[in-house]
């Protein structure tokens, strides 16, 4: 016992100080913090603007957007254009990575400030936006080019092992 309890007493002083200090927790459901502008909450789609380009469906790492497409003359221009009749975002799979938001060419899919999603059934978390519901349980299979792996394709040649951090060896 080199210090005879000094350290413990010092620590107890710290905790005693905090006993009367300002509390930092907040009563959550009553008190809600303002979310910053960039915060990423649940997604929503503005279906009037969606041009059914399927970019969001392709990029989504979790395959949680499913779009059912149909050629339709929606804006009365006389030309039949792709139109999203069904659009589902499965919140039970979404990881709020924002990739779909970034790729959308017309900025019609975006994050809201809503973040409290809960349901008794996973399927209830799939939110439908189109006129026709889409089955969220079917993997949309984004049209990424299929690689023929691992069916014997040789690994790409790695020319030389590039060394990171070049030459400053300790």
């Amino acid at each position: 016992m080199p210090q005879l309890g000094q350290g413990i007493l010092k620590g107890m002083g710290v905790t005693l100080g905090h006993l009367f200090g300002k509390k930092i927790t907040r009563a959550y459901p009553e008190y809600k913090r303002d979310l910053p502008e960039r915060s990423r909450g649940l997604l929503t789609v503005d279906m009037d603007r969606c041009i059914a380009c399927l970019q969001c469906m392709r990029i989504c790492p979790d395959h949680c957007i499913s779009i059912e497409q149909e050629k339709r003359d929606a804006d009365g221009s006389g030309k039949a254009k792709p139109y999203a009749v069904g659009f589902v975002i499965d919140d039970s799979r979404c990881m709020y990575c924002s990739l779909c938001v970034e790729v959308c060419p017309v900025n019609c899919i975006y994050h809201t400030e809503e973040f409290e999603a809960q349901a008794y059934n996973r399927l209830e978390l799939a939110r439908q936006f189109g006129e026709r519901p889409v089955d969220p349980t079917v993997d949309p299979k984004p049209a990424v080019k299929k690689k023929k792996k691992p069916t014997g394709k040789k690994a790409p040649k790695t020319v030389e092992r590039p060394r990171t951090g070049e030459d400053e060896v300790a």
Partner: protein
Amino acid sequence: MVWTVVEYLNYEPWRFLVSFAAVLFLVLNIAGIFTMAERKASAYIQLRYGPNRVGPRGLLQPAADVLKLFSKENLSPNRADLWIFLAAPIAMFIPAAAVWLVMPFAPGAVIVDLNIAILFFVAITSIGALGVIMAGYGSRSAFSLLGALRGAAQMISYEVPLILSLLGVIMLAGSLSLVDVVNAQSGGFWHWYFLPLLPMFVVFYVAGLAEVKRVPFDLPEGESEIVGGYMVEYSGMTWAMIQASEFAMMGLMAAMNVTLFLGGWQPPLDFLDLGAFNWIWFGLKTALLTFTFQWIRWSVPRLRMDQLMDLGWKILVPACLVWLFVVAGAMLVLQGS
């Protein structure tokens, strides 16, 4: 009229029934209040608010807890030794309740003025160790068993410094009765025994902490390594019983500390004497001491088994013995002259 009823109640068997109900009421409430106090103190230390939903400022939380625990199913492990498993919480609870029978709350307010009250206290608290062993052995789990082994080793070895530190008080008071001990400390706080017996007070405090298994001596529970130790298999009301007995035990240790070393119900200065209401002093001192228990708990980590034993046997016991001789010598010199 009222006084005749009161006097009538002073005869058996009414006296027994009333005091039994009073002690039960007291112990259960102490458990509830201390749980609440613990949660609030820990929350404030940790910059939180703690329970604040049930009732004004969350004060009814213990009641809600009890209701919840009552409605919970009482699970027991498949291969548990059911008799021992279910008897263990009772074996822990009874000693925590029984010692209150000899505690002087205020002048004249003691249920039984045993002439061997201190011996009674020592004997009864030792039963608590039995409860721990029963719980650990009965639940048939490696974690419980380890917890029970630790609990047994710890509680039995800390009984030695605990008893040795009591000897100082017994020597000074010249009696084993708690009422006599409190009466001997009358007349201002400089007459309280914690001053002449400071090392013993510290030893009793530390050993008491170990006896009630609180941080830094909560090895039998050790939630980070043996996940709750002997009580890991309990649920529902049996678990509540163990918890209640732990908190009641903590209150008991604080009250014992107050009675033996801090003057019991004696007011710190003579003019503050409240007569029959001196139990307020007793309550205040006990609450303060309990708060220090909680404060320590939320400030320090836990010791290891071997370090715990080192502290008990290599520091507390010798310190006690040395001071015992000092006290004895001083008494000889002062009384001889």
